[in-house]
């Protein structure tokens, strides 16, 4: 009993006193909106580049390949710092925006591969059936291949989003106060390591677990429509 009272007192001192829980809330908000914006950018990039990757044009394929090779070959933290301290240095751009752009570009490379695999995973017979009916390449792609590709790519796509939420914990490298950083700030202010760390860990876990469940539900819905 004393043990739990002790924990509660510690928790109260570290989190509630001085309103430090607000830091966590702000950090959580930053983490979520940066991840959501980044995944939107990543999805747009991913769509375009996946189409480049399967296009007939050698130039477009090469561009997409160079992009994915470079971005996937460099850790996010390094990219983030390059974007902030080198590429966007002279623009004086808001650090949150740089974070969104960097994470978006990073995520874009992974989404590209996910979509490409999804599109190429659709049986070639589907394309042939579409084309043999007189549909153009684009019409076949848009109405026949992509709807099926989306369904197969969805599970990996959603886990990429969840991975991105976890990866945003490197944002403190460019001094963005994300959830992880909020934990750091509380740790510094209170010199208590375990309460903020465990709290942050639990919040991350709740988000990722919740999203995993949510997406699984969504996938099951989609799968059901398949069966009519």
């Amino acid at each position, binding site marked *: 009993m004393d043990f739990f009272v002790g924990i509660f007192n510690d928790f109260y001192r570290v989190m509630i006193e001085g309103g430090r829980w607000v830091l966590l809330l702000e950090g959580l908000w930053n983490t979520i909106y940066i991840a959501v914006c980044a995944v939107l950018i990543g999805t747009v990039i991913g769509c375009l580049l996946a189409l480049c990757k399967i296009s007939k044009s050698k130039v477009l394929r090469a561009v997409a390949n160079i992009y994915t090779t470079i971005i996937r070959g460099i850790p996010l933290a390094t990219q983030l710092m390059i974007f902030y301290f080198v590429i966007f*240095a*002279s623009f004086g751009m808001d650090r949150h925006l740089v974070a969104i752009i960097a994470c978006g570009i990073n995520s874009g490379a992974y989404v590209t591969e996910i979509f490409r695999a999804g599109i190429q995973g659709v049986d070639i017979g589907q394309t042939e059936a579409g084309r043999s009916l007189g549909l153009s390449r684009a019409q076949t792609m848009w109405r026949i291949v992509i709807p099926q590709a989306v369904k197969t790519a969805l599970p990996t796509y959603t886990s990429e989003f969840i991975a991105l939420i976890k990866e945003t914990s490197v944002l403190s490298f460019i001094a963005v106060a994300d959830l992880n950083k909020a934990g*750091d*700030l509380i*740790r510094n202010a209170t010199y208590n390591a375990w309460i903020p760390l465990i709290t942050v860990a639990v919040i991350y876990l709740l988000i990722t677990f919740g999203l995993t469940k949510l997406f699984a539900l969504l996938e099951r819905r989609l799968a059901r429509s398949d069966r009519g």
Partner: protein
Amino acid sequence: MKKITALFMAVVLCALTFAGCAEKKQVTINSTEDLNGLKIGVQSGTTGQTWCEENTDSEVITFKSGMDAALDLKNGGIDAVVIDELPAQRIVEQNDDLKILDLRFTKEEYAIAVRKDDTALLESINKTIAEMKENGDYDKLTGAFMPADGNIVIPENVAPTSGETVKMGTNAAFWPFEYTEGSDIVGFDITMSQYIAKGMGKQLEIINMEFDSLIAALQAGSIDFIAAGMSVTPEREEEVAFSDTYYASEQVVIVRK
């Protein structure tokens, strides 16, 4: 398709709005009050951070090192950096477009931190510091790392190179107290720690980590003492025990020229 286009447009629009906000403004700071409303960069977990949070109404942005904060200052991401005097001098030396303001806020003193229950180690450290001040080793140390002519000569390791080890935690981004020279971590605190280790008859193991992780690491037992230009503050004294102080410093403000 229309929805995607609209979404994309919205993102671009947001981007432009954000980008429009930031510009490198020239700030004039003559007193503490002038820091209000500014974006101030500090190293995470330092007294600079605490001081800014407690004494100014500014947006305090924490970086992993003072150098990162300075870089962001150059790039226009923040308006000023609050940091200890000596690292500040080093930063300004290396960046022509930055300057230190002729303004001093707080005096503070560096000391070595140990676990509260580790009285034996604390006594040993205090004894070493006292001896060094007495026999001239301390003056040699300041002479080596804060020379008048600017040419630092790094002293030889004085600690034993075999036997039991004592673990010292530091954050090697705080010139001239701890920094990297080639692949070695060197500095005032490092050499002093070697004297401390020598006094204990042990090898010195240096563990380099984030500044804001040092106290937690000490409490967790992964290091035995902290020598990281750490200032004595009442908040920290609640968590750790400090040795006798060994250096007096001040917080200064760096801005763009």
